């Protein structure tokens, strides 16, 4: 890291990022950073960022499981939280266009369930996924996505849940999401959207119900209340 031209200001970056600057000095520091030459401001921001990323990793050292009642309380509050309410968006776009984008979006394929193990290890609590894996009737179905990548579902009817693993599927084009649908007798039910797809992405499907197929479409951001394009991939859960 090169030492820039305002050492006094830069020296404040670490205490600033550690929240060790008194409230009364914050506005002054912000003003100085805003008025500083770009390289100084950049050096300040880089230092703040480095401190925050470092302390995020250091948080492993102090990790303590919170009590379960905190989770219950929080989820109750969030479910009833009136602060932001976004409705599902319904779009009238033509299927052909979205299908074209979907096919263009997918890439190379290779399946690897290794990623699933990582995903599970990241979850500290006994999860839906773990229950599915422990189920006596666990099953796996896999399909290649026509333009590349693989989708695999590990599921259990007994647990009424499944785990989806997407491997090497290209992310949806900017301004679109992938949406998953569980399709049963009553037609498609949204199983959630995927705004970004890492090389390996896992998703929990917590309520399979009587669905027989898991289908994927491309939808506008936020997803749709019903599919607005033909599915670009389907997995049979029958």
């Amino acid at each position, binding site marked *: 890291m090169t030492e820039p031209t305002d050492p006094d200001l830069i*020296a*404040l*970056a*670490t*205490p600033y*990022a550690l*929240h*060790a600057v*008194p*409230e009364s000095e914050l506005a002054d520091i912000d003003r100085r950073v805003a008025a500083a030459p770009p390289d100084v401001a950049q050096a300040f921001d880089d230092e703040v*960022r*480095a401190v*925050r*990323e*470092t302390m*995020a*990793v*250091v*948080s*492993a*050292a*102090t*990790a*303590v*499981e*919170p*009590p379960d009642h*905190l989770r219950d309380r*929080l989820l109750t509050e*969030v479910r009833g*939280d009136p*602060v932001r*309410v*976004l409705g599902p968006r319904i779009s009238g776009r033509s299927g052909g266009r979205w299908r074209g984008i979907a096919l263009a979006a997918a890439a190379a394929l290779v399946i690897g369930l290794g990623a699933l193990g990582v*995903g599970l*290890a*990241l*979850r*500290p*609590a006994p*999860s*839906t996924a773990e229950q599915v894996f422990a189920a006596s009737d666990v099953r796996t179905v896999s399909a290649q996505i026509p333009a590349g990548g693989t989708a695999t579902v590990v599921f259990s009817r007994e647990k009424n849940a499944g785990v989806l693993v997407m491997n090497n599927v290209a992310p949806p084009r900017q301004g679109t999401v992938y949406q*998953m649908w569980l*399709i049963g007798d*009553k*037609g498609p039910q949204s199983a*959630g*959207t*995927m*705004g970004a797809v*890492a090389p390996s*992405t*896992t998703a*929990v499907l*917590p309520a399979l119900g009587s669905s027989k197929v898991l289908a994927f479409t491309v939808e506008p951001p936020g*997803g749709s*209340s*019903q*599919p607005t394009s*033909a599915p670009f991939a389907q997995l049979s859960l029958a």
Partner: protein
Amino acid sequence: MTVFTPVTRLPLVTTDLAALLRQVARQDVDAFTSFYDQTRARVFGLVTRVLRDPGYSEETTQDVYLQVWRSADSYNPTAGSPLAWLLTLAHRRAVDRVRSEQAASARDSRYGAANVDLPSDHVADSVILRDERRQVADCLGSLTDAQREAIQLAYYDGLTYAQVSERLSANLATIKSRMRDAIRGLRKCLGIA
């Protein structure tokens, strides 16, 4: 597949925190739940380490996650990782709480302790977190006592750098460079880019 009926959205969970935050921004409760489960031990542990009071720590942790719920769309991936965003937010709230409690009544001398003591019981059970904890503990151990003390007082005890300087009878420039060197040491030891 031509006849579709309107349906409610069902949840999706991924292990990518940034993707989860994008879903939380659209009020996906299940994405929020997963985000909470993947980060709760880090947040609660940090808040508890700063506040040292179970009641305050629970309240503050709850406030942190309510803020996540309401402002997930303010997370900017180009400005840092989701975990750094979350823990910065959590630490800010914990420190604010400590300072408001301090203003109300002088806190006892628990501040004197100058080591980062690791919780020995009730710890998070994730394997990854356990490994990381060991690595972080080793890296904290690799700092000089003076560096560790500066981080302890500022980050975990919520003192300002001026208060740290008074506490340690060292001048401000020295304290600031100790903090900076401590972070650089940790960063290098932990292999953070």
